[in-house]
C-alpha cells in the first residue's frame, strides 16, 4: 500500500470514528447520570442531520445547524420528561425495552417526514469535489471540519465536566446520586440536562458528517451498536476515552475494507464488541478493579 493510500484510509477511518465517538459520548453522558443505556442514541444523530438539512434549504448553514442541535436537544429533554422520568422504578429490562420502542418511534417519525431518501447536508466549505492535499492524500475539507469539531467538542466537554458547577454537579450525580441529592443538587434536573446534552451532541455529530456519510432515516440502529462498541472499548462512564476508542474502531473498519468485502465491516466491529464485552467489559482503558464492583 502506498503512503498516500494509507493516509486516505486513516483519514476516512478517523472521520467515521469521530461519528462513533459522538454517539459514544452521548451514551456516556446519559449512562453517567442514570445508569441507562439509551438505545435511541443513534436516532439523535439522524435527527440532527435531517433537521439541519431541512433548515439549510432556506437559511445559511450555521443557523440551520444550531437550530438542529437545539431542536434535537429539546426532543431529548422531552423524551426524558415524558417517558424516562415516569419509568424510574422499573427494571433494566423495562428501560431497554422503552428506549428501543422510542428509537423505533423516532425512526418511523423521521420516515414519515423525510421519507426513504438519503439526504446530505451541503459541505461546510467547498463542495464534494474540492479537496486538500495532505502528503499526497486527497482529503475533503469536510474531514478537517469533522476533526476540528471533534477536538473542540472533546476539549469543551472536558472543561464543562471538570470546571463548571453544572458539570461538577453532573459528575456528582453519577458518582453517588443520593449524596448529590443530599448536597442540594437537583438530580432530576441533571438527568434532564444529560438527555439534552447528549441529544445535542448527537445532533452536532449528525450535522458535521452528513455531507460525507449522508443521512438516512434508518441509520440509527447501526450507529447505536457501533457507538456502544466504542463506549465499551473506551470504558463505560468515561466520555474522554470514547474519542480514542472511536477513532480506533474507525481505523479498524477502514482498513478491514481493504481485506474483506464492504458488507462485512459491520460484522468485524460487532465481533470486537462481543469479544470486549465478554473478555474485558471494563474497556481497554478502564480499570479492572473498579469494574469488579459494577454489575454487567
Amino acid at each position, binding site marked *: 500500500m502506498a503512503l498516500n493510500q494509507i493516509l486516505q484510509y486513516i483519514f476516512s477511518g478517523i472521520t467515521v470514528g469521530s461519528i462513533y465517538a459522538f454517539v459514544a459520548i452521548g451514551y456516556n453522558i446519559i449512562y453517567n447520570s442514570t445508569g441507562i443505556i439509551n438505545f435511541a442514541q443513534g436516532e439523535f444523530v439522524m435527527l440532527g442531520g435531517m433537521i439541519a438539512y431541512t433548515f439549510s434549504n432556506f437559511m445559511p448553514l450555521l443557523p440551520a445547524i444550531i437550530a438542529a442541535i437545539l431542536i434535537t436537544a429539546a426532543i431529548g429533554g422531552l423524551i426524558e420528561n415524558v417517558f424516562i422520568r415516569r419509568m424510574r422504578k422499573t427494571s433494566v429490562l423495562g428501560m431497554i425495552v422503552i428506549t428501543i420502542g422510542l428509537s423505533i418511534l423516532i425512526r418511523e417519525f423521521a420516515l414519515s417526514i423525510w421519507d426513504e431518501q438519503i439526504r446530505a447536508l451541503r459541505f461546510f466549505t467547498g463542495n464534494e469535489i474540492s479537496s486538500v492535499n495532505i502528503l499526497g492524500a486527497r482529503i475533503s475539507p469536510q474531514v478537517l471540519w469533522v476533526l476540528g469539531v471533534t477536538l473542540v467538542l472533546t476539549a469543551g466537554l472536558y472543561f464543562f465536566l471538570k470546571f463548571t458547577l453544572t458539570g461538577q454537579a453532573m459528575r456528582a450525580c453519577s458518582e453517588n446520586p443520593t449524596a448529590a441529592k443530599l448536597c442540594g443538587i437537583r438530580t432530576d434536573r441533571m438527568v434532564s440536562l444529560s438527555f439534552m446534552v447528549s441529544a445535542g451532541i448527537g445532533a452536532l455529530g449528525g450535522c458535521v458528517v452528513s455531507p460525507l456519510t449522508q443521512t438516512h432515516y434508518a441509520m440509527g440502529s447501526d450507529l447505536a451498536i457501533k457507538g456502544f462498541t466504542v463506549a465499551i472499548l473506551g470504558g463505560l462512564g468515561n466520555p474522554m476515552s470514547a474519542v480514542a476508542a472511536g477513532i480506533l474502531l474507525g481505523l479498524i473498519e477502514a482498513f478491514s475494507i481493504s481485506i474483506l468485502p464492504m458488507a462485512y465491516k459491520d460484522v468485524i466491529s460487532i465481533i470486537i464488541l462481543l469479544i470486549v464485552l*465478554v473478555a474485558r467489559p471494563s474497556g481497554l482503558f478502564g480499570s479492572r478493579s473498579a469494574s469488579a464492583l459494577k454489575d454487567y
Partner: protein
Amino acid sequence: MKKYLPVMLLAGTVIIIQLLTLITGKGFLLTQLTMSTWYVIAALGLCMVMGYAGQISLGQAGFFAIGGYTTAVLSTIDFSARTGTSVFSFFDSLGLLLTRQTIYGDTVIYLSPWAALIAAILIAGLTAWGLGVPVLKLRGHYLGMATMGFGIIVNRIVVGTKIFGEADGISNVPPFKMFPGFEISGKVGFRVGNYYFAWLVVIIALILLINLINSRAGRALKALHGSEDAADAMGVNTARCKTAVFIIGAVLAAVAGFFMTHYNGGIGPSESSVIKSVRYVSIVAVGGMANIWGTLIMGMLLNFLSLRGVFGHFDDAVFGIILVLMMMFMPDGFIRKEVFYSIKTLFRGKK
C-alpha cells in the same frame, strides 16, 4: 390431563376459525393466519428466554433467519456435480437427494428438506450454544446489545454473501413435500392443510413448553428471573440453565423460519433485521412477559393485523408504540399474570 385443557380449547378455536373462514368464503385469510402462526412459534421461543428466564434477547430474528436460510440454500443449490462423492451417495442411500425441474427445464438435484430441517435445528442450536455460553454471562443492557449485535451480524452476512442472495434473498425455494398428498407450500390447494399443520406444530410446542414451565427445570428458569442469586444459592447451575433456554428459543425460531421459508417459497434479509427482533420483543412484552398464552394471543393478533396491512405505513411504529405504552403503563403486560394464574388454578383445581 387437566393441565392440557387450555390446549384443547385452543385446538377447538383453531377448528372453529377455519370453519368460519369456510362458511364466510374468506379462505384467503388462512394464508396470513398460517404465517402469523409460524411467527408466533419464534415469539414463543423468545417468551421462554425473555419472559420466563428474564434474559433479554434482541437477536431472535437472527435465529429465525438461520432456520430459513439453511433450508433455502440447501434446497436451491444444485448438487448434480457432486452426487458421486461418498457423502452424497450416503445421502442418496437415505433417500435425501431429490430432483426437480427448473423453469428452464434443467434438472436440479437438491438436498431433501428433511435433512435441511435437521441441519437448521443443529446450526441454530450450535450457534445459540456458541453465542450463549460467553454472552449469557452478561446482564441487562450488555446482554441486550450483545444479542442485538448477533442479529446484525446475521443480517450483514446474509446481505453481503452471494450464496444467500444478498439484498434480494432467495426466492425459488421448492415446496417441502412432507409425505404423499401434503406439502408445505403456498399453493391454494394446500392452504387448509398448511393452516392445520402450523397449528399442530404450535400445539406440540405449547405442550412441551407448558410441561417445561411446570417442571423442575422450568422453576429454575423462573427463579433466574426472580432472583439469580437465590437460584444460584439453591444449587441451580445458572449458566447452564440460561444456555439451555437460549438454545430452546433459538431452535423454535429456526423451526419457524424453516417452515415459513417453504410456505412463502423464499426468504429475504429483512427477516433478520433488528426491527423484526424488536417485534418479537414487543409481542412478548404485550403478552405479559412470562406468559406463553399472552404471547400466543397477542402474537397471533399483531402479526395477523400487520400481515393484513391494517397498520399501513405505521407497521413498525405500531410495535414501537406498543413497547413504549406497555412499559409506561402496564409493565406487567396487557394480560396480567395474576389473572391468568387464577384462571389456570381454576382449570387445574387445587395443586
